[in-house]
């Protein structure tokens, strides 16, 4: 696996931001999960934002992956939000009966960070 195909875990004002572009492969997701857990352990962030602005197609598998990432982070005590779900993607998810239960969803990265900001204060 080349470095190019690694999803970066970025720290922004005490929160972690993972921006997912297009649909990553299994190995990339597996690597991301490891990276994410490591970063959570070392940085102890206030929150985690999974940004899916770049995802135009979300199948059930990918949805499950995103949900699992969020659930893992939440189990480690990091509140998690998903931001940037496109309208058509959201519509399709609902039509397919897939839900992201227990995970906060935000319109944009700004809003997601704002959510964590107000949660701490």
């Amino acid at each position, binding site marked *: 696996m080349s470095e190019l195909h690694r999803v970066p875990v970025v720290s922004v004002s005490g929160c972690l931001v993972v921006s997912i572009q297009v649909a990553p492969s299994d190995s990339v997701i597996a690597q991301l999960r490891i990276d994410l857990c490591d970063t959570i352990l070392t940085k102890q962030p206030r929150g985690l934002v999974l940004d899916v602005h770049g995802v135009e197609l979300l199948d059930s598998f990918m949805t499950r992956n995103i949900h699992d990432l969020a659930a893992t982070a939440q189990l480690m005590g990091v509140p998690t939000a998903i*931001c*940037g*779900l*496109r*309208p*058509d993607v*959201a*519509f399709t*998810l*609902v*039509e397919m009966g897939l*839900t*992201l239960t227990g995970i906060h*969803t*935000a*319109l*944009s990265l700004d*809003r997601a960070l*704002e959510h964590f900001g*107000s949660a701490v204060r």
Partner: protein
Amino acid sequence: MTDAALQSEVAALRQLLDVYERASIEQSEVLEKANSELRQGQEERQELIERLRLAIEDLSTPILELWESVLALPVIGVVDSKRSAEMTERLLAEVVARQARFVIVDLTGVELIDTKTADHFVKMVRAVELVGASCMVSGIRPAVAQTLVELGIDFANLKTLGNLRHALAQAIRSLSEAGSAPH
């Protein structure tokens, strides 16, 4: 029978055939005309129905910006799957375009509801929440409320309020509580 007699018989028969043929052609022309008139009438009616349908569509789902980042969708009349899909699509696009934080789906104009319609509304609310705005439902009529309870539809996860006014007040309260009103 003589030849002459036979010939005159044949001539008479031929004449008769001619008359019949002419009559049948006339008949078919009349029929054709009536048919085309009917067809034209039907086409006109179809056109009118289509135009009315478009007009209803335009009228039926306005999306209003009630307050800074608060959208309202007043629903009136019967909601079928086609209309609900269109409504949801437009609502989601609007939420993203106007960066809305709250969406109020007002059901004051809905007198009757069945399982399918209720399902459409639940889906609409879920989709709005996935996009990242919080969704409230207001103005559920007593009859509708009773039907929903009898049908056993789970509206438990939805925020429901008495009327549009309460919903808007709630939204404004939440906005000011979050302290996120950088006008």
